């Protein structure tokens, strides 16, 4: 049975209250949105969603990575290949980026199912992630949120199969971002909603109904993209959808997460789906695309996932709008980041195992795990007798720590720790924790993050984060 065999999500724990944007006092439980912090971006969020999706699955089986994203930092350089390396996947993996449209997420998922059905891939990891920015003070800023989601598509114990899909393409200058512009722009919203969004999305969904001879009542949940809560409501009305059937779009909690938005909703729906349920997911962007899934009995056997609900529970508020602006690099400092050529790409190439994959060595003679990879064993002095040893998926502990007030961050200090990971000692930053909460020997796990901007480009490395049960 070909279909989705696993899923996982990532929503940054930092939440910006919409009141904070307006400079108003925040209220407990008031509307907010998820925002990537200064060491996060679309690809770091994608990495964590992928890690969550792969929990309990054999990474050796993955032979394709499809990465959907409209906000990847590089115009030329593939995100999927970075994900594959960071996840320490086999080298023979096929990698594709899907970009340029808010439909990139459903495009990638559909392409993965096509590839597995055609027999050109066996197990494809699909990751959709976006970190879009509206200009400060704009309506877009209020509605956007950041999130990533990942699915494993394969032939086996699929938890949901793709029954049908339907797409329409359209050309409309309604929502866009030009190369080099950090902000998404939109034409007048009444035009966008009346001429673009509403009719296209309705066309996509009804097109799927017609193609498959089905109706709204055949579906347990219908999830669809919307630029904001209001237009979400108008599509639900235009399609005459029963309220119970509409998948909660999470405006006011997470926000419109671009090309991952409808897939985040799909993952959220799968968390509570029952065998036999049918789920419809429709995306919008330069047209529309609707996918119809059937949930299988395997959904009950899938180990609990770090999905959308898991992440919604883990949140911390951003203290001020100013800090948000700093975190998103929207405030100019006196010192522009230097236009240096950055760290040696040659060195980085040699150190990919350590820096991108957090892979160290285990000594074949004495068994000692060490990081970074060595030629001579730190413990028994044996030479060149090592095997690769992945640390990123292990649990470590904090051996010692300090709080660095000099490291540039919107919210100093930065917690820096030396972690023990199966005997290897790794010096790294500790995130998602207040300094006063750090304790010696606390257990930690690892997340892929931005470390610095040397060379004017994002540089990525792993960071420790408190182990969450």
């Amino acid at each position: 049975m070909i279909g989705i065999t696993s899923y996982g999500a990532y929503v940054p724990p930092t939440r910006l209250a919409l009141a904070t944007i307006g400079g108003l006092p925040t209220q407990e439980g008031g509307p907010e949105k998820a925002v990537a912090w200064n060491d996060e971006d679309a690809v770091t969020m994608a990495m964590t969603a992928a890690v969550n999706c792969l929990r309990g699955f054999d990474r050796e089986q993955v032979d394709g990575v499809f990465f959907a994203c409209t906000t990847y930092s590089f115009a030329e350089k593939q995100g999927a290949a970075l994900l594959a390396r960071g996840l320490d996947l086999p080298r023979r993996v096929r990698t594709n980026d899907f970009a340029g449209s808010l439909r990139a997420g459903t495009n990638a998922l559909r392409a993965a199912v096509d590839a597995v059905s055609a027999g050109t891939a066996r197990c494809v990891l699909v990751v959709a992630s976006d970190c879009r920015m509206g200009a400060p003070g704009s309506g877009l800023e209020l509605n956007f949120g950041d999130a990533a989601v990942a699915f494993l598509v394969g032939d086996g114990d699929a938890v949901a199969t793709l029954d049908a899909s339907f797409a329409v393409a359209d050309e409309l200058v309604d929502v866009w971002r030009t190369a080099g512009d950090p902000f998404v722009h939109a034409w007048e919203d009444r035009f966008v909603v009346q001429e673009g969004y509403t009719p296209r999305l309705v066309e996509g969904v009804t097109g799927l109904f017609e193609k498959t001879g089905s109706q709204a009542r055949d579906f347990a949940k219908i999830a669809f993209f919307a630029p904001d809560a209001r237009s979400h409501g108008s599509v639900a009305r235009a399609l005459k959808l029963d309220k119970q059937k509409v998948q909660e779009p999470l405006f006011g909690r997470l926000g419109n997460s671009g090309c991952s938005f409808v897939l985040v909703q799909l993952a959220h729906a799968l968390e509570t789906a029952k065998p036999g349920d049918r789920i419809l997911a429709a995306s919008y962007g330069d047209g529309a695309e609707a996918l119809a899934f059937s949930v299988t009995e395997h959904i009950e056997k899938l180990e609990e996932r770090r999905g959308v609900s898991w992440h919604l529970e883990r949140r911390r508020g951003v203290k001020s709008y100013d800090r948000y602006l700093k975190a998103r690099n929207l405030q100019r400092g006196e010192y522009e980041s230097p236009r240096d050529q950055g760290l040696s790409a040659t060195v980085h190439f040699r150190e990919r195992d350590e820096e991108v994959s957090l892979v160290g060595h285990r000594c074949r003679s004495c068994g000692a795990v060490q990081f970074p990879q060595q030629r001579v064993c730190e413990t028994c002095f044996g030479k060149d007798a090592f095997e690769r040893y992945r640390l990123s998926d292990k649990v470590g502990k904090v051996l010692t720590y300090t709080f660095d007030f000099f490291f540039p961050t919107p919210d100093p200090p930065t917690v820096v720790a030396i972690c023990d990971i199966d005997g290897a000692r790794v010096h790294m930053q500790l995130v998602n924790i207040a300094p006063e909460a750090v304790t010696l020997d606390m257990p930690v796990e690892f997340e892929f993050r931005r470390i610095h901007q040397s060379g004017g480009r994002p540089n990525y490395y792993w960071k420790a984060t408190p182990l969450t049960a």
Partner: protein
Amino acid sequence: MARDAIRDKVSIVGVGCCQFGENWDQSPADMIVDAAYEAYADAGIEKPQEQIDAVFTGSIYSNKGPHECSDALKLWKPVTSVSNYCATGTDAFRCGVMSIACGLYDTVLVVGYDKPKDRGVAGPSVVMTQVRDLPQTPAGWFSICASRYFEKYGAGRDDLARIAIKNHHNGTLAPNSFLKREITLEDYKKARLISWPFGLYDCAAQTDGAAAVILTRSDLAKSFRRDPVVVKGVTVFAGPNPQKDPTMDFLAWKPSIEAGQVAYEMAGVGPEDIDVAQVHDCFSLTELLTYEDLGFCEKGAAKEHIQDGRFEIGGGLPVNTDGGLKSFGHPTGATGVRMIYENTLQLQGRAGERQTPDAEIALSHNIGGYPTACGIAILGRA
């Protein structure tokens, strides 16, 4: 291996040290000339081009050390430049000592210098060669022992404060020091944090500076001056990076312990024989750990000795009599040589208000890198 192979064979006959500080209007050459000519005068050397056989220099910021030094002094000689983190100055000195002890040269000049203030940034440079090198300052590296040490031995920031206050005070007594400012416990507590537990006053002052020493064969020393100081032992050590060393306990710095043992054996003395010491106080905790790592007191006992005032001027074992890196300043390559300068003055009874009565054996110590590198020199009255 004969640990006593160089003991007493080489003597210091001249020392010099320029004003440490933000020397905006001085080039490296200016500082090198100031320090070297003071050392020449101290040794009674009038024709350095004839009397100096070789030069050993140390700097970590300069990438043209040998030429910078020979060109400044117009010494067209065998010139060697050494780079060994914060042990750079001591290592240049060690190379000079060995070159004489082996009989190759009679008289050599050692110059340590650095000019961090020309870089346009405060604090030390952060050299990143790998993505995973956290863009962190040394404060972050040297603070990694704090959480474990404090938990195990009950020491804390109050003990660090005593060290900072002492070194600020001592700095006011040294003519060429950078910071000449007393601080109070209240100042200490109010200061901004740099990397916990270090606040501003736990950190060494980043300055420019140069220091110089003239070394000669001990049998020739008296022809330069009547009170030469002999080199009893000098060593360096490269230890494992504590950030990845699987056996690191975060209670002590291994390079200090290892180098200390060797230096004591070379000199034929023990910690109880040391009358005055200059130790690496790049951060207050580094000085505290060094008391223990060099055996000035038992492991874990530093805080009692600090509270008793043992390491203050007038105490049983004065440490950092000239204000140390903290107040005198820390031009990395110069620091080890500056300590030898101060210890030489102490052994010759020329340290003025800072003088340790009847000092016969003096020790200087540097530790740097992550930290990985240590250098120790033990000097004695001839």
